[in-house]
Structure formats: C-alpha cells, structure tokens
C-alpha cells in the first residue's frame, strides 16, 4: 500500500513508532568527520524524518545495529557468569537497497548452515527495515553490477518527494496507522538506480590461482593496513574476543566481542608467533577474494553488495572496485605464466 504524506504526518508516524521501537537512520554529525570542518553521516536514533540524510551515503553502515563494534557477551565475577539484559525495544532501521541486501549476507554468516548465533539472533529478532529509495547513484556505488540495486523485502519504503514523502508499506501492522494520517493513497514503487558511474565485472573464470598474480604486490606498499575498508563494509563481520576487568575490582569484568579486521596486524596471529599473510598485498587478496569469490563458493551469492564505502573511506585512495576490475587481466597473466 503506497502513501503520499506530509513531513508532519511522517513525524507523527515516527512518534507512534518510537513508543515500541528504536528508530535509527543515517544522520549528519556536524564537524564529526575525519578532517577539520567535515561532517560524518552515520547511524543514530531519530525523532524527525528531516534528520535522515538522503543526499549523502552514510560513512558507516547499519551493521553496527546488529553487530555492535563492541558487544558484551557476559559479565563475570569470581564464581558467576551473567548475560547482559537484551535491548527491550526492537529496532527499525532506515537503509538503502545495497544495505538491505547486506542483511541477507549477515543472516547467512550468523544464522545460515547450522545453529544461529545467540547474540546476533537476539538483536535481529523483530527488526524492521525501512528502505530509503535511491534516485541516483553516488560516484563510488556499483550496486547494479552486484545485483543489489532493487529490494522488495522491506517493511516500509520512503523517499522525499517535493515537500512531502512517498512511502510504500508492506507491513500489515503499519498500514492502518499510516492510513489514519490523512495522506493520499497511491501506487508507490521505491526509487532505485538502474545505472552507476562505477562499473565492475567479475571474471567468469576467476579462481584462486589469481593469488599468484603480481597485481597484489602493488598493495604491499600502497595499503597501510588501517582496516577502514573492513569497518565501513556492511558485510565485514569478523570479531575478536576481548576480556576486560574493572580497575576497582579486578576480579570482576566482562567478555566482549569486538569487530576485527583481516587487513590489520594480528588478525591471523597464533600463540607462539606463527602468523599468516604478513604482506598487506596478501591481506588485500584475502579480503577481495572473499567478497567476490570465496563467499559465493560457500553460500551461492557474492558477499560484496557494491555500496562503495570501502572506496570512499580508504586514506590511500585504493579502490576496491578497481581491484575487482583488474582480476580479469590478473587471470590472464596467471594462466599465461602457467603455460
């Protein structure tokens, strides 16, 4: 069911919603960017639809709402272990089509093929998704080539339309309250992009032999292993366990899981000093192939959703989409060398 609503009406709906849900969306943090005088668009709770940033991509994705960068698994004392009390309200997440496709990846990683992850499932239960329509792609987006530009598994879609808003509701429980707002009912199809400036093509014949290509050596020096690409990626989900104890009573503390990065030192370190992928180029290959090769082999679809955030945040201006586009030549190089 589609609606055309005024800002006032949408805000009334948000107010009702916030009584039962935590409503989060990409919001502008003025002066919160990495450099002086720059802003940061990232996720926060909203009370007003005009807070939601539509004309800019969020620097960090929605994933932190399902997988907090630092999440307490349990508290311990000398002789007891206590689980934290879960969030009381389920979350309503505003996100774009690429990110909604990323949810499918997170579900696959944390709940697919076996027992669901306890803490992920706890946060995932009851979550509603509000699709933010994209009228045009941002420079680094390549959702069309990754097949993530269209989504229909949203609960509600929303996009600005002149002074008002266009919404499409798929959640039966929300239809009546939306209708009661006194807007116009209409057929609404969420805006989506059909072409992007950045294009990628993943070679059909891609296989692990591409690791032998010289292209990876280039990233030994260019990459500084900061991990920004992983932390901004909506489908990077690795974590590390972290125990901490309280200064005032060292016998009590908590165990957390914190976001990890396969680009950062220590990711593959084992006790005693053994490690894998010392070179940054090797780490780049490990990450890139997971996104466009290894994950698909296991799960049947690519991990990368083409949001382009990794390209936006890299301090060395390394472009992931460019690396993907180099894989074809790299395969050629490797097969020629093998002959």
């Amino acid at each position, binding site marked *: 069911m589609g609606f055309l609503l005024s800002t006032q009406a949408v805000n009334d709906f948000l107010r009702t919603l916030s009584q039962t849900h935590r409503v989060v969306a990409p919001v502008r943090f003025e002066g919160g960017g990495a450099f002086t005088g720059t802003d940061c668009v990232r996720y926060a709770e909203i009370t007003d639809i005009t807070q939601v940033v539509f004309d800019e991509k969020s620097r960090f994705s929605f994933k932190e709402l399902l997988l907090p960068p630092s999440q307490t698994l349990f508290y311990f004392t000398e002789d007891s272990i206590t689980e934290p009390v879960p969030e009381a309200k389920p979350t309503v997440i505003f996100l774009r089509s690429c990110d909604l496709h990323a949810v499918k990846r997170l579900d696959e990683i944390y709940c697919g093929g076996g*027992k669901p992850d306890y803490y992920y499932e706890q946060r995932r239960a009851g979550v509603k998704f509000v699709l933010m329509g994209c009228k045009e792609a941002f420079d680094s987006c390549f959702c069309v080539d990754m097949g993530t530009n269209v989504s229909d598994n949203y609960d509600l879609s929303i996009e600005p339309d002149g002074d008002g808003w266009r919404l499409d509701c798929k959640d039966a429980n929300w239809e009546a309250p939306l209708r009661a707002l006194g807007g116009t009912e209409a057929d609404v199809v969420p805006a989506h992009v059909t072409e992007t400036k950045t294009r990628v093509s993943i070679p059909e014949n891609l296989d692990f032999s591409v690791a032998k290509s010289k292209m990876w050596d280039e990233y030994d020096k260019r990459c500084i292993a900061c991990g920004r690409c992983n932390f901004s990626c909506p489908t990077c989900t690795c974590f*590390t366990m972290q125990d901490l104890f309280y200064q005032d009573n060292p016998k009590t503390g908590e*165990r957390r899981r914190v976001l990890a990065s396969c680009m950062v030192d220590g990711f593959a370190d084992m006790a*005693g000093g053994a490690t894998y992928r010392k070179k940054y180029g090797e780490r780049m290959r490990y990450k890139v192939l997971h996104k466009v090769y290894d994950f698909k082999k296991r799960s049947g679809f690519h991990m990368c959703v083409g949001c382009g955030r990794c390209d936006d945040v890299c301090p060395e201006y390394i472009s992931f989409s460019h690396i993907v586009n180099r894989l074809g030549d790299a395969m050629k190089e490797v097969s020629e060398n093998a002959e």
Partner: protein
Amino acid sequence: MPNNDYIPVRSTIQEIIRHTPHEWTFRMTYDDALSVKPSQFFEISLPKYGESPISVSGIAPGLLDFTIRKIGHVTNELFNYTEGESLYIRGPYGNGFDLEQYKGKELVIVAGGTGVSPVRGVIEYFADHMEETRGVHVIAGFRDVNEILFRADFAKWRKVMDVTMTLDTGEPTEEYGIGLVTKYIPDLKVEDPANAEAIVAGPPVMIKFAAKALAETGFPETHMWVDESRKMCCGLGKCGHCRVNDTYICKDGPVFNYATVKQLSD
C-alpha cells in the same frame, strides 16, 4: 543458559601431568567426555585473560586431557593453576578424527612435538583395540630429549604397535633415534600402502614434507589426514579468523583430507 554457545562451563583440574617445564597435560572433568572425538577442540576460558583453542589429547569417562604449551597470554596464566582448582571451557568444536575411517586397515601416524596431542586419542584407542586394526605405525618427533611428551604412553604403546621416536638433536638411545620424522617414512613396513591410511599432525612444514615422503612410499593423498590449526576466536565459524579460502578450519576441520587441504592457501 541453554542455546548460548559463548557461555563456558566450569571444569575442575583433576590432575596435571608435567611433561616438560612448559608443556603440561591438564586432566579436566567433563560430563559428556565420551562423546568427544580425538582432535576436537575446546576453548579454554579464563575470564579476565581470554580464551585459547586447545585440542583434546585424551578421552576417558568424565575426563578430558588438554596438553598445553605455555606460550601466550591465556596459557601463561593457566600454568599458575593447580590440581583441584577450576576454570571454564566451552566446546567441543570441529570434526575430530573419525575412528571408523581407520578401522580394519593399516594406519601410519606421523606427529611432531605438540602435534602428538590431537592424535594421542587415536593411538590410545587402537592400543586398546589392536584387533580392530591391521597394524599401527607411529613416528613421533621431538626437538630434544627435554621436549619429549607422553613418555610413559610411548613405552606402553611400544609393546603393542610399531613405535618410532626421534629427536632433532642429541645422541641416539634404545628409546629414540636422531633425525627428522621424514627420515623414517621410507623404512615403514606397511604391507599395502595403497589401501592404508595416514594421519599427519605437527608444524606446517613437517606436514608438507611428511605428506610428500608418504606419497613417495605409495600412499594416495586421499588417504592422508592432517590436523590443521589457526587462530580461532569462536570455534563456531563466525569470527572469521581461521578462514582459508571458502573453508573454516574450526568448523570444516581441523581434520582435513590432505588432497583437499593442499588446495587451500592462506
């Protein structure tokens, strides 16, 4: 607290066997011990210090052995523990060795250093059930005389199966020879290598050369089984640290067929 895999359970240290100053076997209480397979692993959990993935080196009713080297943050702390104290564990994780795979066949086991731990359960089983095998050959290598693990076990195993011990350095005795494990592989008296099975566990370099030597004596790669190890934070295939290509060592392994695992590359 059911369903939550991350909550560890309490386990009491019943006995500590001190093989060397820095390699001890902790014999721990665990109710369902007999359901655990050799080379499956547990996260040994010391709140405030963290967790370490440690493979099971022995299985008995109500008891599991963990042979641990004092080498990192968690294990350094663990070596301050004594008999009667308790700590936390969670598991078992991984596939472990499937004993059925080796029954009724000749079996060669090549292990180096702490690599003996994950295969000890296999050796123990067949030492007690020699009628279920057509012969077991064990080659175990250690750095020097001070690094030998499970010395009493080897003496016991030697009585029922073909056991070769070797040290990297030192003077040979009746108990052990000198040289790398690969030196002894060509001399193995395996009747029918094409139908025998082999297990290799130890440092990556040792695995590589032992597999090569076994292949030269006629072992098909599909009959070789190796025990892999990586950093594993969760044991559940979620944390990502142990992923190699499309494989999670913790969940799909740690025991792999050599023909499969040699395709993997970190």
